[in-house]
């Protein structure tokens, strides 16, 4: 039972990095990718190019970011003794992570709610800043957890690990836009590449998990709690997997049906 919950926690954290990693990456690269499109001579303004990138990731964001909500819920339910220690030990980092996350999300939800170039450009700047904040604070947080929560998490090692996470997410984000905006001929190759970059984005989390697995098992909840969690949660996992697969089936590129071309994006 303990190993099942360790595995669930690991799958959720790895899943978060592999999935939300590309949303964060696209956000980070927003100005760069739009400039690259401009230089490649594609028609449209810088704003048009940014819209195209956001439109590419928009249908996936809600389904991806909940993985982290589930990670923290699992930490609380199955490893309660660790939850308080880790989150309070990382207090300033968690504040920075939450503020970055909220600003990134607010930018997505609000950027199209009022027409006008200044409104949308301002939210796009926040989208980019929030995404950078997410990547860097995640790196610093993982580095701090692996080292047993030192006093100052913003040291050189923390920043270096932040840079590693940021690079991995950016790499993944770029591969995602290439896949999502690919034509029918290249989508197979772009898809395989996306799987590879997903593994790269997950690596920082996998490394941290390897270092902390023993400590997680030490702090696991007693069998009575785990049994209740298993009885309620394990039977619905197929529905959760099904819902996630449904998102990917619905929003994969080049879906047959030209009607999709005329649907404006909500984000």
């Amino acid at each position: 039972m303990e190993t099942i919950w360790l595995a669930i926690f690991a799958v959720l954290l790895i899943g978060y990095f592999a999935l939300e990693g590309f949303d964060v990456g696209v956000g980070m690269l927003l100005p760069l990718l739009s400039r690259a499109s401009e230089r490649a001579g594609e028609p449209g303004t810088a704003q048009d190019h940014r819209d195209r990138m956001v439109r590419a990731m928009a249908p996936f964001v809600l389904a991806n970011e909940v993985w982290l909500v589930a990670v923290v819920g699992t930490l609380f339910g199955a490893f309660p003794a660790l939850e308080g220690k880790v989150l309070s030990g990382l207090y300033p980092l968690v504040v920075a992570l939450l503020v970055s996350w909220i600003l990134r999300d607010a930018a997505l939800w609000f950027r199209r709610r009022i027409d006008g170039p200044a409104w949308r450009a301002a939210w796009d700047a926040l989208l980019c800043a929030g995404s950078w904040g997410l990547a860097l604070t995640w790196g610093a947080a993982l580095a701090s957890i692996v080292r047993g929560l030192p006093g100052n998490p913003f040291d050189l090692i923390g920043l270096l690990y932040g840079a590693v996470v940021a690079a991995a997410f950016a790499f993944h984000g770029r591969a995602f836009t290439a896949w999502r905006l690919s034509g029918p001929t290249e989508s197979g190759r772009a898809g395989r590449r996306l799987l590879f970059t997903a593994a790269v984005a997950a690596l920082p989390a996998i490394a941290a998990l390897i270092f902390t697995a023993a400590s997680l098992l030490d702090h696991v909840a007693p069998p009575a709690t785990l049994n209740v969690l298993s009885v309620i949660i394990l039977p619905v996992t197929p529905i959760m997997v099904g819902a996630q697969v449904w998102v990917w089936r619905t929003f994969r590129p080049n879906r047959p049906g030209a009607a999709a071309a005329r649907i404006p994006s909500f984000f």
Partner: protein
Amino acid sequence: MLDLARLQFAVTGCLHFLFVVLTLGLAPLVAIMQTRHAISGKPVFERMTRFWGQIYVINYALGVFTGLVMEFQFGMSWSGLSHFAGDVFGAPLAVETLVAFFLESTFLGLWIFGWNRLPKWLHLMCIWLVTLTAYASAFWIMVANSFLQNPAGAVRQGDHLVLTDFGALLSNPSLVMAFPHVIGAGLFAGSFVIIGGSAYQLFRKTPEQEFFRRSLRTGVVWGFVGSTLAVGFGYAQFGFIRNLQPDKFKGAVPGLSVELMTAIGQTTQFVVMLVLLPLLIGNLLARFRWVHPLLMIMTPLPFLAAILGWLVREVGRQPWLVYGKLSVADAMSPGLTRGMVTFSLFAFAGVLGLLALIDYVLIARTIRRGPARVDLGAVESAGPAPAPALAL
């Protein structure tokens, strides 16, 4: 510092509830509108779904932002809670986040972006699944909160509580009447937004008279259902509370809050039942233009009552975090400094407060612009397509 950490939790909690109560109310009403469209095929129901759905979705965003801070805050500021009661309290929170909210967010993404893309009945199924999982979320959060009010199903073992009877968590007397009370409060708030928005558009005599006449009717009918549930299950809680927390209303804040909430709930419920509901006959309510400003002014009432109710429940439990077992002061995370909590309080209150304000402006703007200019589920009008930005 304890007061700062409490203030931070109270501010984010109140903001969270302000948005969540509307989410809980609008989700089923939007689902009903979409169902009526799927069955009757009438375009007005599709337009209603998209218009009120956009308001639901804009509101939902702030519910998520504030909810994230709530979830992380337990561990950040109150690690004593997870140490003392995590083996019990953590389980319902884990179910909420890992199952209910996980599915709610996934299905909402499918609903928002699957418009004109998913088959009609599957798309309809998405909004019903969103509603179902939103209710499940509310249920598990209330299970967790009810445990703090009345720690049933657990016994003390050494320095912490262990779970002995999960069934007792689910049949907690603090839960059984409070959950339908919250569901009623949600419908109450959701329908009052529909009533207020419709009154505004009817008062301004915009061309969308039929649209808002129908919306007003939906709002009043469900406002009656919601306010009756909220008031009925509100009164039903007093007996339980007297047994479980006899001093609940002794303090100034909970005492005043409970009286004001009861007054608002009771009066509004009477107004809906005895005035608004009968005036639906012959669409009198839509025709009596002088009533519409009054309806607009009434819109914040269920929100005010909801916050007051939350204050009663939470402040009335002080100084306990887990009633009779763990005090709030003892639950604070060791090692927090005044500077850290002040910094985070300003960061969260500042960011969330500002975003909440923007969110309400955007909701008001959506109502003012009317159903003709809704983003949700829109299809690009025929004409020169600005390719390739729309290539997806």
